[in-house]
């Protein structure tokens, strides 16, 4: 297979991000404050949000599903409800915290499977070549030919809503990006002399792949996974918005925005608060992805 085939968008995630890359915001901030600061900020945001989700049970002042029909649509800053309540009188802060648990952890869970599967298959294809490479890349091309979000939504629609469904759907669609990325890297590294040296040295193939090629190619996939998580969070919230996400009454940022729709003009904070949470998560991941990519480039 020739190397001048169309590269997947992921190949552009190293170096300066492309226009559509989730790293674009991160790059803008990094140019202002420098790569180290931007990494610290990104990691802090994500760690804080993860802690908020993990400790939601301790931090949340109320049960996120508990309705209080006498106190509906209370504005932020009112007594007992820091961020107000929604149309059913549920505490917005509590729902936001529990939503972090769902959105961030499901997103990381959903990125892990395609990351592992795609990277593994891509490494093998790139190192081994031959029929395995050809067949795998044809499958990848077919999956790539579909618009990602449409395919994901169709899959979730068929499989039925739920956390497991989201992870399965994302894995089915998303592994191709990691497969392409690691295949290209494995092909490039496989042509270098240290791999030839390992082969002359009689080192077994599996060891060459995992001990020599993998550590030299994995960083690009990790950077991409950070950007990818942003996309998956957007996807999860989109599903929630479409009513296909995590089933109610579980709190999830997308569902919160969706349910707040009728009150958009009268009570704008209702959709804006979860919206800000989504943007903040995206910013954090974007900062991490971009500053990591800069470090790899610098090496």
């Amino acid at each position, binding site marked *: 297979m020739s190397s001048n085939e169309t590269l997947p968008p992921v190949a552009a995630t190293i170096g300066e991000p492309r226009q559509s890359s989730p790293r674009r915001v991160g790059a803008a901030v990094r140019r202002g404050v420098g790569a180290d600061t931007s990494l610290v900020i990104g990691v802090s945001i994500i760690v804080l949000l993860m802690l908020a989700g993990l400790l939601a049970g301790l931090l949340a002042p109320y049960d996120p599903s508990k309705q209080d029909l006498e106190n509906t649509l209370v504005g932020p800053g009112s007594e007992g409800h820091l961020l107000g309540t929604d149309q059913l009188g549920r505490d917005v802060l509590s729902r936001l915290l529990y939503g972090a648990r769902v959105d961030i952890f499901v997103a990381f869970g959903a990125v892990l499977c395609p990351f592992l599967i795609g990277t593994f298959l891509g490494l093998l294809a790139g190192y081994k*070549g031959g029929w395995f490479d050809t067949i795998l890349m044809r499958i990848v091309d077919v999956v790539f030919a579909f618009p990602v979000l449409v395919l994901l939504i169709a899959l979730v629609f068929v499989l039925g809503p739920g956390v497991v469904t989201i992870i399965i759907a994302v894995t089915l669609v998303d592994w191709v990006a990691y497969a392409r990325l690691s295949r290209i890297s494995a092909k490039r590294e496989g042509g*270098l*002399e*240290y791999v*030839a*040296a*390992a*082969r*002359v*040295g*009689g*080192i*077994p193939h599996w*060891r060459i792949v995992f*001990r*020599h090629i993998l*550590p*030299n190619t994995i960083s690009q996939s990790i950077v991409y996974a950070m950007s990818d998580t942003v996309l998956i969070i957007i996807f999860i919230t989109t599903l929630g918005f479409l009513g296909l996400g995590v089933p109610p009454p579980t709190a999830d940022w997308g569902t919160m925005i969706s349910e707040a729709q009728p009150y958009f003009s009268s009570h704008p904070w209702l959709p804006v608060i979860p919206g800000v949470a989504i943007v903040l998560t995206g910013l954090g991941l974007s900062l991490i992805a971009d500053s990591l990519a800069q470090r790899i480039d610098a090496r």
Partner: protein
Amino acid sequence: MSGEPLLSVRDLRIGVAGRDKAAAFEPVVGASLHARRGEVVGVVGESGSGKSLTLRAIAGLLPAGVEVTGGAIDVDGIDVTAAGRSQLRGMRGGVVGMVFQEPMTALNPTMRIGAQIVEAVAAHANVSRAAARGRSLELLERMGFTEPERRYRLYPHELSGGMRQRVMIAIALAGEPSLLLCDEPTTALDATVTMRVLDLLVGLAADLDIAVVLVTHDLGVVARTCARVVVMYAGRMVEEGLAADVLQRPRHPYTLALLRAVPTRDATIEELEAIPGAPPILTAELPGCPFAPRCAFSEPACLEAVRTEAIERGRTTACRRHELLAVNGSLA
């Protein structure tokens, strides 16, 4: 220095597959090479002469689409061209070790050098971790590293080019091979480091009683290190003999031309002679001598046929008119 050669390559042909018959060609057509234990053999020739491919074929490392199409390669009694996968794997590292040109890319940048040597040791000997570590430190010390304990923990980017190349040699020797193949090991190094690495290789050949094949395009390297030398041109062996003989009294016009192109202290730039013309295109099958079109000694018959003949003990040339060189070809 006597007995059966450890490495014996006879009339090796290497073919590159093309999309169709017309695109296929043979970059190596008749390479022969012999090396005994304790001996350093040089292979010289310009870029594209097939010397590196020949070396890779010996190691069983030809890239995809490139294969041996004729001839034989015997290493320590094993026919490499016919060897199965498992036989080939046993041979790698254990019988044949290889040193590459680029010390920058020939070491894994993400592993400490100690771990890389240990890995190579462990691939061939069923030894404990401690024993493998001990052997690795021993190898580093043999390669001339002071404080091997400290170097052991370094990453490749923390070493200079010459040090990396010595680590590379240590890795190549980890499986205690009897044949060490070196593909332009000093081309990427500066002059003083080059000398050090070459002296190390010569010392290793004698001390470990191994055969070293050194591919280079530098005749100075050959003069300094090699007992015997093979000159290659356009995928063929054109001359072979003791290095001193070949370099002093070349019996092939190509060797003579190469020697005249080497700068020396006494020659001014104007006195250096470039070889006129360009090497032949390898897709066309040549019946005659590939060098004839560029040769000052050629006659029409040279384009018709070529044969390799022995002129002295261990000395062969592929030139029909080598006797002319014996008379006129002195370097003076």
